[in-house]
């Protein structure tokens, strides 16, 4: 693509590429890393990156970031995703970390940031509640001040990997009389606190990625409040805006597209009447990826010239998820009759799965990727955002 790298940048790219090749743990190369790894396995790469000083590309140097340029960050992002490495814990590094170093006090920074970088603390996100959907300001979980503590009661849901988490960052309602967005505070809660219960939610692909988190009379020290009481919505929005990079998922889509091509070439003869349809649809998606990648490069070029990318994140989220859903759909179609089968979790049980290896995760990926247009602000919400922010409607 057209992002012309300087020689320093090219050298950096080569360094990243070599580092991944040499250091990415072999045991993390499983059919479906998102669901097939234990907590300890998931953390292996995180810890390697931490040791290298590369765990938090977005963080300022003073807090432990590598001090990279926007282009370097982009190169790192591109190389890691193309290589198919499991991203570091997003809820820790990308989400709560920046909130803490931006809005937290010194004690909070000293206590939490190093443990985030090292992977010692695993964070999960307490935003969604039953019935909130994309309307995150409709928080009903209550926190009532009681001396040096808040007493928290409520029910968080769709909490990703809460089963592994040491801490949860929560939106809680501290002023029930204020307008929805005004009475919210941002609290850090130790998952080991009495009154915290995690209940698995099994999704339609059979995996356990998300959970209900019940909070019953959980006592949270006031020192765990971020910033000011009732100002939590500001921090929450900051956090959501921080997801900007990598939502296009070019690296992942490119990898899955290559695999799809391999499957189609192996499974479907050129004389099969649907062969032409497959290669045409693959070409279509490939062009979608190319156009999105070229758009991403334009945005990176603008950002490095100091231009605000605006709601580019929404565009990337919409198109990136549509593309990936389409790829998983086509892959599921490509494996034909074996699309009827699905792996049983936990895979450690090692049950029989029919058909060629490359098809074993096709069904679960097709099902699992349905979530992409729902979670993280549904694609309908993203279109609302663009309509408002770009089109002024």
């Amino acid at each position, binding site marked *: 693509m057209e992002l012309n790298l300087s020689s320093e940048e090219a050298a950096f790219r080569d360094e990243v590429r070599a580092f991944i090749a040499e250091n990415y743990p072999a045991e993390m190369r499983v059919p479906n890393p998102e669901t097939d790894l234990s907590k300890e396995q998931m953390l292996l790469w995180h810890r390697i990156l931490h040791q290298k000083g590369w765990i938090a590309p977005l963080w300022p140097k003073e807090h432990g970031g590598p001090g990279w340029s926007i282009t370097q960050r982009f190169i790192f992002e591109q190389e890691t995703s193309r290589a198919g490495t499991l991203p570091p814990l997003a809820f820790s590094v990308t989400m709560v970390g920046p909130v803490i170093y931006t809005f937290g006090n010194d004690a909070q920074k000293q206590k939490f940031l190093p443990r985030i970088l090292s992977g010692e603390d695993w964070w999960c996100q307490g935003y969604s509640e039953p019935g*909130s*959907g994309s*309307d995150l300001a409709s928080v009903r979980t209550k926190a009532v001040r009681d001396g040096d503590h808040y007493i928290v009661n409520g029910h968080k849901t769709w909490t990703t990997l809460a089963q592994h988490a040491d801490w949860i960052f929560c939106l809680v309602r501290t002023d029930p009389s204020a307008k929805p967005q005004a009475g919210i505070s941002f609290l850090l809660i130790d998952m080991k606190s009495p009154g915290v219960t995690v209940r698995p939610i099994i999704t339609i692909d059979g995996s356990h990625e998300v959970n209900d988190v019940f909070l019953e009379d959980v006592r949270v020290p006031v020192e765990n409040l971020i910033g000011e009481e009732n100002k939590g919505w500001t921090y929450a929005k900051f956090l959501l805006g921080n997801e900007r990079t990598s939502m296009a998922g070019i690296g992942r889509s490119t990898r899955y597209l290559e695999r799809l091509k391999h499957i189609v070439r192996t499974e479907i003869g050129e004389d099969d009447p*649907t062969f032409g349809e497959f290669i045409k649809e693959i070409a279509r998606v490939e062009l979608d990826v190319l156009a999105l990648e070229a758009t991403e490069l334009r945005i990176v070029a603008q950002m490095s010239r100091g231009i605000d990318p605006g709601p580019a994140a929404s565009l990337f989220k919409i198109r990136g998820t549509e593309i990936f859903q389409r790829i998983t759909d086509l892959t599921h179609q490509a494996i034909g009759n074996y*699309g009827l089968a*699905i792996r049983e979790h936990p895979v450690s049980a090692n049950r029989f799965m029919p058909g060629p290896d490359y098809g074993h995760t096709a069904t679960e990926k097709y099902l699992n990727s349905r979530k992409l247009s*729902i979670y993280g602000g549904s694609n309908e919400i993203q279109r609302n955002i663009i309509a408002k922010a770009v089109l002024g409607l």
Partner: protein
Amino acid sequence: MDIQLTEEQELLRSSIQRFLRDQYDFDERRKIVATDEGWSRKHWSAFAELGLCAAPFQESSGGLGGGSLATMIVMREFGRHLVIEPYFETVVLAGGLIEDAGSPEQREAFLPNIMDGSAIWAVAWAEGRSRYDFNNVTTTARRQGDNFVLSGAKAAVIGAPWADKLIVSARTSGGPRDRDGVSLFVVDRHSANLHLQSFKTVDGRRAAELTLMDVHVPASQLLGAEGEGVVALEACRDRAIAALCAEAVGAMSVLNSATLEYSKARKQFGVALGTFQVLQHRMVDMFIALEESISLTQHLSLSLAAREPNGSKLASGAKSKVGYAARFVAEQAVQLHGGMGMSDELNVGHYFKRISSINIQFGDPAYHLMRYAQQS
């Protein structure tokens, strides 16, 4: 239903509806799927008692003479309740093949046990690389005295772990992709040298990979004319498609109602989801998709009943159009249910998965669209 049903058909439909409403709600179904065996002999017996297993067969075969319209009525209601029992495999596929291609002796030998619910069947036509073509058969059957000896592997045979009998396609002559030379055999599920590797399907069924290592089958178990299995399977597929379309229509109708209801009840940003115009239009398109699918499915069933000459082309057309429509409805039903749509606890995802499987069984929408196009 929009075509005028006969009194008998109305009776059939209302008896199924009553039974399923009372005995086969989503919780009950979940329990059945979670059992070791994965299906319910109790409910199966009830289906047989209601006459469902005999419904489509000709009166001359001892059936109730309901034909393809009876199948449509049953399958549509089964689609509404995600019935897991192997009615499609036993009655529609195997029963249809036996009635259509079997000798009088075979019909007499096998159909009564299907109609009274005492035998479960499955049909093994697919192979690892066959995709959706009946002629792609590498499993062989060679004559040895009074027997055929079958060797090879069959793939993704839905219902095989539950079955007493299997109908297996194997090559008695010709090359691996020849249309001629494929024959059908009735094989005992517990035959020597027949091995099953079972697995669960995405829609809660059980299926198996079959390995046949010199399985001996008496020559009397050859079903239909030797070498003409593809023709029999193609006719079977037309009936299968009509049944699957009806099942899809049943599933779609539940998804549409559930989505509509949810959108009216569920509040976001202080108003009901259903007040958002984008979602309204989405649901209108789901409504249209369902209406068109009902029409085309009825049209197909009526055409098969009347033995119209273009029935097979029409079957491919319906499989494609209804398949695309059902996928659209299923995907949007999940999308509009938001996170709940992704949860295994809600019924929506299970309808999604059944529709996704229907779209694979006997060929996906793209396959049948091209098949239809090539006949136009």
